[in-house]
C-alpha cells in the first residue's frame, strides 16, 4: 500500500499540468510575432519583442499550446492541447471570435488557410475544414494516425503528410481523398511544392526523399536507397535550382529537383532535426540540435555561424531581414538575429 501511495504521489507530480513536451510554435507576420508555448500564446511586437497580448489572460495548467498559429486579415487561428481550435482578433488574443470544440485530439500542427476555410489537422486522426466566418465544420477527413504536420494548399488540392507512411492529397472543396503517395517511413514534416514544375518533395523516417507530380500523383524519383541516409524530419528547400535537405546525422544534401540526381553533399558537424531554412536569394541556414546555426551563402565568403543558447528542433523562420529561432532548454523561448548573423532581441515569458 505504501508503495502504491508513494508511486501515486510521484506519478501525480510527474504528470500534473501540461501533458506534452514540445518546441515553441512561432509565426511571424508583418507586425507581430506569435509564440505558442506551454500554457500561453504570446503576441509580440516584431520590432522589439515586447508582449502585446496573451491568451489566455490567466494561464491554466490544463491548457497547453505548441502549434504555430496562422494569421490573416486581422484574425489569428490557433489550436491547443485541450482539443479546441480558436479564431481570435489579431490585435488582442483574448477577443475570441469563435471556438471549434468537436475534435477529440490535440491540435499540434500549424493550420492552413484555404479561402473561406481553415484546415486544421488533429492528433485524433482527423483533418478538419472549419469555416472561417462561423467556426462551423465544413468537412472532416478521417485518417489512420495522428496528423502533426502543416498542410499545404495548392489551388483546389490539400497536401497532408501522414504518419502512416503516406502523403495524402485531398480535394479542398469536399475533403475527399484524391490519391495517396506511398512512402517507406512516417512523414513528420510538411511537403514542399514547386510551382514551376508542379512537383511535391517530401522526406520521411524511411531514410528517403521523394518527388511526385501533384496533378497525377506519379512518383518522379526516389532518393535514398543505398545512400547511407539517416531519417529525414524536416521540409526541404528549393534554392538556385537545387533541392536542399538535411538528415538527422547532419548531412546536407543537394539534389537536382527534376531528376533526383545528387549534386553535392556537406556535413553540418552535428545532429540536425530542424532542417534547412531558405534565406531568399542569399543562401540557406542549417540549425544544429546543439544550437549551432550556420548560414551558407550563395556567394563565396558570405557564410557565418552563431551559437544560439538552446537546443533547436524546429526550423528558424526568416521574415524580411530578421531570423527568428525557437529554442528549448534556454533562458528564452525565441532568439532573433539579422540575416547577417547579428543578435537582436530575445523573448522570455514573464515569470
Amino acid at each position, binding site marked *: 500500500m505504501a508503495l502504491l501511495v508513494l508511486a501515486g504521489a510521484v*506519478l501525480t507530480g510527474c504528470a500534473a499540468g501540461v501533458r506534452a513536451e514540445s518546441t515553441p510554435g512561432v509565426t511571424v507576420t508583418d507586425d507581430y510575432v506569435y509564440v505558442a508555448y506551454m500554457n500561453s500564446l504570446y503576441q509580440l511586437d516584431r520590432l522589439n519583442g515586447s508582449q502585446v497580448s496573451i491568451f489566455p489572460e490567466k494561464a491554466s495548467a490544463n491548457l497547453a499550446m505548441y502549434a504555430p498559429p496562422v494569421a490573416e486579415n486581422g484574425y489569428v487561428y490557433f489550436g491547443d492541447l485541450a482539443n479546441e481550435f480558436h479564431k481570435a482578433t489579431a490585435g488582442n488574443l483574448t477577443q475570441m471570435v469563435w471556438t471549434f470544440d468537436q475534435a477529440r485530439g490535440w491540435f*499540434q500542427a500549424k493550420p492552413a488557410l484555404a479561402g473561406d476555410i481553415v484546415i486544421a489537422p488533429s492528433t485524433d486522426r482527423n483533418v478538419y475544414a472549419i469555416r472561417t466566418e462561423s467556426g462551423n465544420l465544413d468537412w472532416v477527413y478521417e485518417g489512420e494516425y495522428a496528423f502533426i504536420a502543416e498542410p499545404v494548399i495548392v489551388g483546389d488540392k490539400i497536401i497532408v503528410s501522414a504518419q502512416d507512411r503516406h502523403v495524402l492529397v485531398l480535394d479542398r472543396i469536399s475533403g475527399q481523398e484524391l490519391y495517396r503517395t506511398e512512402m517507406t517511413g*512516417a512523414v513528420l514534416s510538411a511537403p514542399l511544392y514547386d510551382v514551376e514544375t508542379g512537383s511535391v518533395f517530401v522526406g520521411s523516417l524511411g531514410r528517403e526523399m521523394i518527388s511526385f507530380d501533384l496533378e497525377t500523383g506519379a512518383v518522379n524519383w526516389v532518393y535514398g536507397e543505398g545512400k547511407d541516409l539517416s531519417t529525414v524530419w524536416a521540409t526541404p528547400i528549393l534554392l538556385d535550382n537545387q533541392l536542399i535537405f538535411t538528415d538527422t546525422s547532419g548531412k546536407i544534401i543537394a539534389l537536382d529537383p527534376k531528376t533526383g540526381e545528387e549534386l553535392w553533399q556537406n556535413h553540418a558537424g552535428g545532429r540536425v532535426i530542424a532542417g534547412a531554412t531558405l534565406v531568399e536569394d542569399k543562401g540557406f541556414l542549417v540549425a544544429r540540435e546543439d544550437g549551432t546555426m550556420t548560414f551558407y551563402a550563395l556567394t563565396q565568403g558570405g557564410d557565418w555561424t552563431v551559437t544560439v543558447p538552446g537546443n533547436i528542433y524546429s526550423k528558424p523562420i526568416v521574415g524580411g531581414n530578421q531570423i527568428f529561432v525557437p529554442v528549448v532548454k534556454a533562458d528564452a523561448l525565441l532568439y532573433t538575429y539579422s540575416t547577417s548573423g547579428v543578435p537582436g532581441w530575445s523573448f522570455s515569458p514573464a515569470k
Partner: protein
Amino acid sequence: MWDTIIVQPFTNLLLLITMLVNNFGIAIILFTILIKLITYPLTAKQLKSSMAMQDLQNDPQYKKTMEKYKDNKEKAAEAQMRIYKEKGVSPFGSCLPTLIQFPVILGLYQGIMRVMASTPLELVKLERLVYPFLDVNKILPIQNRFLWMDLGQPDRMLIGSIGIPILAILVVITTFIQSKIMQPPTQGGANDQSAAMNSSMTMMMPLMMGWMAYQFSAGLALYFLTSNVTTIVQYAAMGRADWSKILPWVQPKETGKITPVIDLEDDDDEEEEQEVVKTVKPSARSAAKRKRPKRKK
C-alpha cells in the same frame, strides 16, 4: 544515467513487444504483466514481511511487553528488538523490496510515457532511446488505437453524445478492491490510529488513481488497470486476499485462533493465567522460530 539504466531498457522492451504483437494496447498489458512477474519475488517477500510484522503487532506477548515498558522507551525498544530476533522478523524486511521495486515502477511508467510520444520533440527523444537493433523506422508510427480507445488521449467511450471514462471507472473499482483485500485486519487499542489511516487510504487511493486515469492518456490508465488486476491476482495466489471485505456473502477469512501466551519475560508474569487471544495467522517462519510455549497452571 537513470535513462540509460532504467528508462531505455524498459522503453526498448515495450517497443519490442509492440513490434511482436503489432498492437500497442496489448503490448502495454503484456509489458506490465511481465514486469510484475519479474518483480513477483520482491512483492512476495515484501508482503510476507509486512504480514509477519502485523502478526507480531497482534501478538499478546508483544503487546504485553510494550504495555509493560510504555514509560521506558529505551527498554521498550530493547525488548522490541529482542522479540523481533526471537520471532525471526526483520523490521526492515518490507522496506527493502519496496525500495527496489520503486525504480522499476517508475521505469515502467516512464517507458510507457516515452513510447506514447505524440509531439515531434517527443518523437526525437524516443528515436534517441531506441537501440540500434530495433529499427526506428519499422517502429514508428505507433498505432495508438486499441478497442474503443485512443491510447494517447484520455479515455472517453462515446455513448450518444456523452463520453464515459470506462478505464477511469475500472481503475477506481480495481484500486478499491486491491486496497480492501490487502487491508490488514483491524484490531482495537493501539491499532486504532493505523486502522483509521488504512480506512481513509482505502477511500482516497481509488479516487486519486481514478482522477489520474480520467485526466491522463488512456495508455497510462490501461497500465494502472493491468497493474491493479495483476496485483490482485498475485495477492490472491498467495492466499492473502480476504474477499469477505468486498463480497458480503463470502465467509470471512480465518484470522483468529487460540494461542497460548508465550512467556519470554520476567517472573512477574507468573501469576497470569492462560489467555485466549485472537491473532492473525503467523507466518511459517515466525512460527518455526517461536519458542516452545510454556503452559501455566
